[in-house]
């Protein structure tokens, strides 16, 4: 087990470095010279010679005078020491910049996942138990539609219905403007603004419902379920004690894999609802050509993806001792 984890970690590190080289290369292809951008403002006030000198100084300061491999090494070295660089737009270190959006994203995602699991898993179980009834079939169609409709369309529909036609939710943002709530009241206000984005996210709940349904149906078709029924156990016991526990294996894997996703912001939803999370930060930094931030965020997302993969595999192994890691 320990050997396996080490192997996977080593592999993650290799992939991470390979991708970082790739991304760094792509970012170096971007037109525009950050050093030029830095001294542009002084162009009018100083003589051309001085301007050229300032420009060269800026290049040295930003390390742009060195060859690209050296630039990569120093960039990577800084990242490993926890220095992600400097945002050219906000003029603060990227590390500080990412903090507050990260909190917002995690808050939104935690609430979302609570609702997702609280609704999705019971519905999935019910669908499996009532397979091929009207309930199941209609829910299958409904989830299919929910999965097929992109989140921005459901967002537009929900904004139109519940923020404009029947204004029960705020259209976007995170706090009621002009109302300086404090303490618990502020917290409630925060949750209130969270409601519509979460409802929109929940239109994609079909994925979980279908997954749970499939896993439980697989378990219900096993021989031990037939045995349990044959010996006269109550249907409830058969489903919840025998079948569902076995269905939990794939479901747990799914849950754990998605929980790693709480750090990653839903780009479209956050942008649409002006929720200041990491997804919106990424879009904003790309729109404002703040590539230091975008690059750091990208590395973060990649790390997250790779970690999710590893954690899911480990989780399968813990939950189901039959699975052997190699």
């Amino acid at each position: 087990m320990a050997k396996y984890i080490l192997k996977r970690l080593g592999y993650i590190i290799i992939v991470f470095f390979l991708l970082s080289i790739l991304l760094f290369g792509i970012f170096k292809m971007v037109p525009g010279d950050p050093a030029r951008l830095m001294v542009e403002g002084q162009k009018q006030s100083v003589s051309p010679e001085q301007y050229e000198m300032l420009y060269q100084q800026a290049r040295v300061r930003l390390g742009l005078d060195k060859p690209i491999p050296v630039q990569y090494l120093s960039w990577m070295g800084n990242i490993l020491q926890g220095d992600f660089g400097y945002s050219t737009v906000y003029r603060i270190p990227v590390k500080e910049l990412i903090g507050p959006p990260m909190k917002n994203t995690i808050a939104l995602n935690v609430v979302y996942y609570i609702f997702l699991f609280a609704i999705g898993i019971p519905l999935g179980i019910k669908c499996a138990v009532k397979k091929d009834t009207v309930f199941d079939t209609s829910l299958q169609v409904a989830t299919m539609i929910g999965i097929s409709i992109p989140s921005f369309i459901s967002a537009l529909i929900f904004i139109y219905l519940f923020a404009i036609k029947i204004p029960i939710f705020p259209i976007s943002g995170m706090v009621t403007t002009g109302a300086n709530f404090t303490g618990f009241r502020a917290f409630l206000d925060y949750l209130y603004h969270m409601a519509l984005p979460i409802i929109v996210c929940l239109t994609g709940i079909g994925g979980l419902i279908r997954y749970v349904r499939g896993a439980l149906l697989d378990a219900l078709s096993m021989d031990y379920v037939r045995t349990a029924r044959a010996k006269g156990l109550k249907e409830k016991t058969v489903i919840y004690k025998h079948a569902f526990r076995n269905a939990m294996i794939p479901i747990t894997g799914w849950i754990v894999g998605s929980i790693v996703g709480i750090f990653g912001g839903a780009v479209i939803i956050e942008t649409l609802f002006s929720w200041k999370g990491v997804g919106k930060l990424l879009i904003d930094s790309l729109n404002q050509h703040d590539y230091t931030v975008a690059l750091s965020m990208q590395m973060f997302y990649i790390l997250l993806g790779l970690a999710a993969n590893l954690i899911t595999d480990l989780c399968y192994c813990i939950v189901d001792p039959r699975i052997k890691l190699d």
Partner: protein
Amino acid sequence: MLFGKKKEKEQRSVLEEEQMQSPFRTIIKNLLENKLAMGGLIVFVSIFAMCFILPIWFHQDLNYQDPTQKNIAPGFSFLSVPSDLKDNAEVIEFGPTYGVGVDKDGYVYEWGQLTKNLKKIPADMGKVVDIAVGQDHVLAINDKGNLYTWGFNRMGLNVIPPELKGKKIADIEAGYQVSVVVTEDGKVVSWGNTSAVDISTANVKDEKVKEVKANIQTAIALTKDGKVISLAKKETALDNVPEEIQGKVEKIALTDKAAAAVLKDGTVKVWGNNHDHIFSVPEEVQGKAVDISGGRNHLVVVTEDGNAVAWGGNENKQATVPTKASNIAKLTSGYYQNCIIKEDGSVVTWGLKGYLLGTDNLGRNVFYRILKGGQMTMTVGFIAVIIQFAIGILVGGISGYYGGTVDILLMRLSEVVGSLPFIPLALILSALIGNKVSDVGRIIMIMLILGFLGWTGIAGLVRAQVLAERNKEFVVAAKALGVREKNIIFRHIVPNVMTIIIVQATISFATCMLTESGLSFLGFGVAEPIPSWGNMLNNCRSSEVISQYWWRWVFPSVVLGLCTVSINLFGDGLRRAVDPKANER
């Protein structure tokens, strides 16, 4: 099933029961029985056919923009002259999206798409004798010579200048957001948004003006002694009035960029900038013209025998004169609409009726953009899926067939690509590479990004299928015959797993369309002016658009939603048809 009961299975004799059915026929039979899947197929095929066939007849330049036609709600009411007015019309004038008419008794009627202010017709006007219509305001004069104006009321448009008090008025005209009045003694007074419309009365200070014509940019004046003078402050092409016509002009008309005049001898002369073949005056009117009027890009002439002839831009059928147009008493054209009042007082109209699904913020036809956007979204999705499948089958086939180190390496690669966060990476690649390439290059890049990042699922599927097939007899037989390995994989094994690959392809197609739309929605996909279903929604995020201009987001959303839902329903049905075991679940 949800829709209708399944038919009772036919009773077959034992012998028939033994008959074999090819797997392909079983799939088709299963599929045809699945009503949802067939419904999905029908919906998708109709949307597909609509997007690719309708634009053949129906064309609009993608770079086309028209601020006068922006944000128009769906409907065909521009030419719906009220029935009360139809038989006793005195004057009819057109604005960009509406019409205003006066009947012989002096009552004012309005129809088409009216703003709130336009509906506030002053009640105390008495008997109205003439009207003039601008972008969204109306100017009217009654039999006592009093001026009234309503509609758009900023820029001082609602204030009739005091110097007009007590003056007798000869002609009224309304431009984009500007009103122009000519008094009996030949003076011109203009007010309104003079920064948007280039009108200066200084050019005609010493002249006695008979009438003024305005378009959305400027105006020209005709003097009592038959001279034409441009009212523009800036130098425009309209200044180049041909010298030989000065003093002989009877009537004038303006299009966006050109001016036309009917001379005393009945010839028509056009000058300015030649757009939409506006200079090609039909030969049959030369020498016979008595009246002329102009819309945005077309001209209409009334000949001495009372018929109308039109030429110029015809994208809204504004230059297609109906055959009923004879015995003309009065002709008016405005924007893309035309109207003639016959000698018996009846009204014939032609031109732009409205838009099926409205227009967007730049005045572009939403219906046409949905069709074109559908072409784009489907093409991008289709090619992306082809790329995904080419890579997926190649990697999965090799990986599954050879196993061992090759398998491990390829599957690790697939795992890495699969664990890359898709949207962020696509955003960054699109932002970084996208602004260096052309519009078409950008679209190709989106296809490549979707293709090269999305093949891992298919590779895994193909690999699993190949693993299951590779030890079967037919493969062993092929090996024994000495068939090359490349051919064994791609000619013998892959065709056997093709059905499952096709199922996956349909579902991937829907996913690719969704991803493309998402990227375009965020502004990182297909770029304007080329439409895609995603980027049509890009500027519909504000609450103002969502609530007031609902047609701009509802229609693209409905089509995109219908399309992906139907593909997914079909894909799901296909999966069940191909793999009947899935039905047991």
